[in-house]
């Protein structure tokens, strides 16, 4: 390289003196880049490791239990003498709590987002937003006890026959828990809609509500979809609330008023128990984990497709 050394600033002597300053900067740049690359690769490696272990242990599991039984058997009793390995009761448990949670979180989160983005004054927004975000700082175990000791008794006033453990109250509380995620990401998406689109609607005589619902919301749909997908993932993966409030018996039911175990709750139950390492019962948690991963992945892919479909170039 044609570097004229006389033109370079004078450098202090150190370990790398003798090397041209330009080269030293380049080496330093290279080192920083490698470090950053390493950090990025670590997260990829961890993900691959998790998938690898889940797959390996699940493979062991499926070499003993037929995958047909796993997907079609209507009972999940791996710890009983008469062991059944049908994942369906755990899947329905997860789906019911997730659906209940989304029935709370999506309308509420969307309404809050519309209010904060289109109606609230700056001072209100600056107060409400941090307050909402604080909600997501509450440990999930607290939500679990809130569901069990407050929401369930309250619901029992309405349905006296409601069992102490039920999916409804767990689902409702998960819903409240993920409202901040949904509202915060949706609001960001709505506020990113350019002002000139809003003004275009207002100039035609639209009210705030018409502008919010017919112009801003559809324009932000891509980002709002991302918010919903985040909510779905959180709801599917939520563990503490369901483990505490929904009961631990795997039951094949779609009725939210009944107790049931979700996939996550089952994993907690077995991980905490004294199941011998390497046994089929032990491997069930990996098979369940893999199922959970696939389900979440499915929703994420669906969300990604929707997000792409609604992407707007303003």
């Amino acid at each position, binding site marked *: 390289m044609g570097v004229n050394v006389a033109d370079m600033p004078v450098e202090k002597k150190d370990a790398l003196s003798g090397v041209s300053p330009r080269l030293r900067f380049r080496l330093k740049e290279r080192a920083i880049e490698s470090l950053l690359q390493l950090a990025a690769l670590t997260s990829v490696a961890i993900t691959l490791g998790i998938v690898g272990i889940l797959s390996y242990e699940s493979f062991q599991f499926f070499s003993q239990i037929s995958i047909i039984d796993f997907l079609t058997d209507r009972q999940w009793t791996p710890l009983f003498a008469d062991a059944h390995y049908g994942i369906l009761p755990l899947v329905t448990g997860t789906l019911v709590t997730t659906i209940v949670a989304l029935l709370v979180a999506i309308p509420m989160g969307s309404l809050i987002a519309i209010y904060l983005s289109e109606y609230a*004054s700056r001072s209100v927004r600056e107060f409400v937003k941090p307050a909402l975000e604080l909600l997501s700082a509450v440990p999930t175990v607290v939500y679990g006890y809130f569901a069990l000791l407050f929401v369930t008794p309250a619901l029992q006033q309405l349905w006296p026959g409601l069992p102490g453990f039920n999916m409804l109250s767990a689902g409702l509380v998960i819903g409240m828990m993920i409202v901040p995620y949904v509202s915060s990401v949706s609001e960001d998406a709505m506020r990113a809609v*350019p002002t*000139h*689109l*809003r*003004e*275009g*609607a*207002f*100039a*035609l*005589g*639209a*009210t705030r509500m*018409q502008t919010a619902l*017919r*112009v801003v919301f*559809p*324009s932000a749909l891509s980002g709002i979809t991302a918010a919903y997908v985040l909510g779905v993932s959180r709801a599917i993966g939520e563990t503490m609330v369901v483990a505490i409030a929904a009961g631990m018996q795997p039951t094949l039911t779609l009725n939210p008023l009944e107790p049931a175990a979700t996939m996550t709750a089952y994993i907690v139950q077995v991980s905490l128990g004294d199941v011998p390492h390497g046994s089929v019962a032990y491997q069930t948690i990996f098979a369940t984990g893999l199922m959970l991963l696939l389900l979440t992945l499915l929703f994420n892919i669906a969300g990604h497709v929707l997000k792409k479909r609604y992407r*707007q*170039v*303003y």
Partner: protein
Amino acid sequence: MKAMDASQTVLKAEARGLNFFYGQAQALHGITLPIYDRCVTALIGPSGCGKTTYLRCLNRMHDLYPGNRYEGEVTLYPDRVNIVGPEVDPIEVRMRIGMVFQKPNPFPKSIYENVAYGLRIRDVSNRSELDAVVERALREAALWGEVKDRLQASALNISGGQQQRLCIARALATSPELLLFDEPTSALDPTATSRIEELVTELKQKVAIVIVTHNMQQAARVSDYTAFMYEGRVVEYDRTETIFTNPTVKLTEEYITGRFG
């Protein structure tokens, strides 16, 4: 200000002593300006002179943001309502006065739904009525021939000039009495610009038009009356040919001849 030849012109709106404040900052000082029906009134002046601020007073756009305040009056004829009066609902004003913005801002919807939007928010849902209005508005905006076969296509997939004409069609669909243009060609190429200018000239046969422009030739080409504004005041207002050929105020002459601004 000279007396206007009022033999064939009818007032559509008139500002009298209009002051406007962004919070504490006064942006318009005693604007007095007539707007004649079936005429194009151009507002010219250097950046920050208040021409867009004045334009946005006419459809109460400033009401969308907190802290803005009007003083004085803008009378809309024939019913002589003071459109900046606090008792007047800004939405009522915007229903009567349309606006086309600097940057084409079609909604991310189909071409059809863009034009139909103004009717939909007025709760018109009769399909044949919508169809008729959409076609009428697109014809008036000289866009019908180009888009009639793809009304359901996204409005974001047509060219910038077409988008701007679509925005004009969207404003025309609700038959406004007064149409405001805020530098409508500043984001367009010369060909698209001249089409918009032709369109403005055609549209003035049906509706009163106020256009803000930075382009002096544009003001000279399309307008019947021109107001030169400077620092929140109207410096001079007259027939366009008078302003451009024989301005009374020295400042106007200096601006028009490009000595400042």
